[in-house]
């Protein structure tokens, strides 16, 4: 509880997240067996499904069993995706092999069957021509690269964040990743959370080499300068040889920007 200058007593949020637990405890006391059963049914309905995009049928085996690869690249967020689409997937022939749909009780539809194709926000591609990117290697020899963005105000430094030369790249890698990052590593006390953290945690625990490239930017929507900040990664071991034509990539990126700009202008 906290008192304000206006004489009110308000419930101050607890940074340890314990007020949720107290609500759960109280709810637990009031909840009937029927409530518990409803919650169990909902939990069972939550699913992450891997589908073949064109036919929308489920994949019978896991993606990596069907398409074993030595390099697995994940882009999270619009700027990271734009970078991969323009510079990496623009070279060579990439084939769409599947997509992931997920459902939990916070989705607005009833279940995954009702999710429209545009809501499949995770799509998998593999490079048909390059044997390095797919080849029958055991999982241990697989290297994972993750690209994502964060707002520069998330970055803790003894200087003021306003004076930082954003956008800038930072990296985090797992113990088993012997590659040198093409930028400096993320210093303490900075942390990463969310999907990139979940992937990196998995890789650290199960000893898979993985590297996360994090672009700190002050523009979270699709932005040319932010996307270009990822360019140093093209010469790293993770993406070496995958981007064949960088000037062409820049052209593709510029086209992507203009398409988006027109769409977002509400006055035309």
């Amino acid at each position, binding site marked *: 509880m906290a008192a304000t200058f206006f004489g009110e007593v308000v419930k101050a949020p607890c940074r*340890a997240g314990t007020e949720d637990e107290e609500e759960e*405890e109280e709810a637990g006391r009031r909840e009937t067996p029927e409530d518990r059963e409803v919650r169990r049914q909902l939990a069972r309905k939550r699913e992450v499904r891997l589908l073949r995009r064109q036919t929308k049928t489920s994949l019978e085996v896991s993606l990596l069993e069907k398409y074993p690869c030595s390099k697995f690249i994940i882009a999270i967020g619009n700027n990271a995706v734009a970078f991969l689409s323009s510079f990496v997937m623009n070279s060579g022939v990439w084939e769409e092999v599947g997509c992931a749909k997920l459902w939990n009780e916070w989705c607005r539809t009833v279940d995954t069957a009702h999710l429209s194709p545009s809501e499949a926000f995770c799509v998998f591609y593999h490079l048909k021509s390059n044997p390095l990117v797919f080849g029958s290697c055991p999982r241990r020899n697989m290297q994972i690269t993750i690209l994502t963005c964060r707002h520069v105000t998330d970055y803790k430094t*003894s200087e003021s*964040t306003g004076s930082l030369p954003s956008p800038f790249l930072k990296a985090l890698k797992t*113990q088993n990743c012997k590659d040198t990052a093409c930028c400096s590593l993320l210093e303490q*006390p900075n*942390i990463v959370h969310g999907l990139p*953290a979940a992937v990196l945690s998995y890789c*650290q625990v*199960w000893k898979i080499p993985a590297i996360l490239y994090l672009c700190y930017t002050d523009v979270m929507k699709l932005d040319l300068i932010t996307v270009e900040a990822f360019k140093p990664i093209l010469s790293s071991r993770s993406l070496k040889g995958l981007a064949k034509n960088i000037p062409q990539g820049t052209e593709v990126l510029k086209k992507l920007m203009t398409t988006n700009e027109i769409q977002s202008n509400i006055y035309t």
Partner: protein
Amino acid sequence: MFVPCGDWVPDLTGFTLLMPAVSVGNVGQLAIDLIISTLNMRKIGYFYTDCLVPMVGNNPYATAEDNSTELSTNAEVYSLPARKLVALQLRSIFIKYKSKSFCEKLLSWVQSSGCAKVIVLSSSHSYQRNDLQLRSTPFRYLLTPSVHKRIQNKIESLNWQEMEKSPCIPQMDDSEFCVRVPGGGITKTLYDESCSKEIQMAILLKFVSEGDNIPDALGLVEYLNEWLQIIKPCSDDPTTPALPWKIPSSWRLLFGSGLPPALF
């Protein structure tokens, strides 16, 4: 589940497990950080679970360039075999409705690993104290019934204050009394589960308010030290450092980045 760093599972038979409850002011977690940092405990594994919000960062206890690049996750296990101590550090909050599942998984690992006892460092909202608690020491302890008599006697000799029972439902006048730890996160669940599973568990907590909780964490580790004697108590020798506990390097910038000079 516990996943070791190396290729073999370390033997924790007879060890004392120190762990925090994610609670008000994060005092338990800060205290565990101090213990791991001061005793230079070595990471022996991860507690890999889907119950905690994922997070990663570089080694929070880094002391030099060469040890600053080891990746850390949200739940890690450290040990000091010389003192038969093992510490579990939790670095993020629980996902909604998953805290009970976490407690069950944790206690099941405690039993299978052969740990002798568990000490939970926690905290409780200071505004929930009654009049008597306001006037007394802010530290409290709780022991499960299966705690060894030898430990019970030791605690008694320290003249510590046991956590008082309070009305189960505070709004009701004729409510029954039970042990409550408001703001304590999973403390109460861990205590109840340990009682029913006959696990030796001691809970050490402090009444705190959120803010700069570093002094609270220091207080809590000193309280623990009275019992476990982890480090030598402060002596009159002028050569010993004023602060016997080593502050981890990750505690920098706890209140955010630097300020723009133009502000002034």
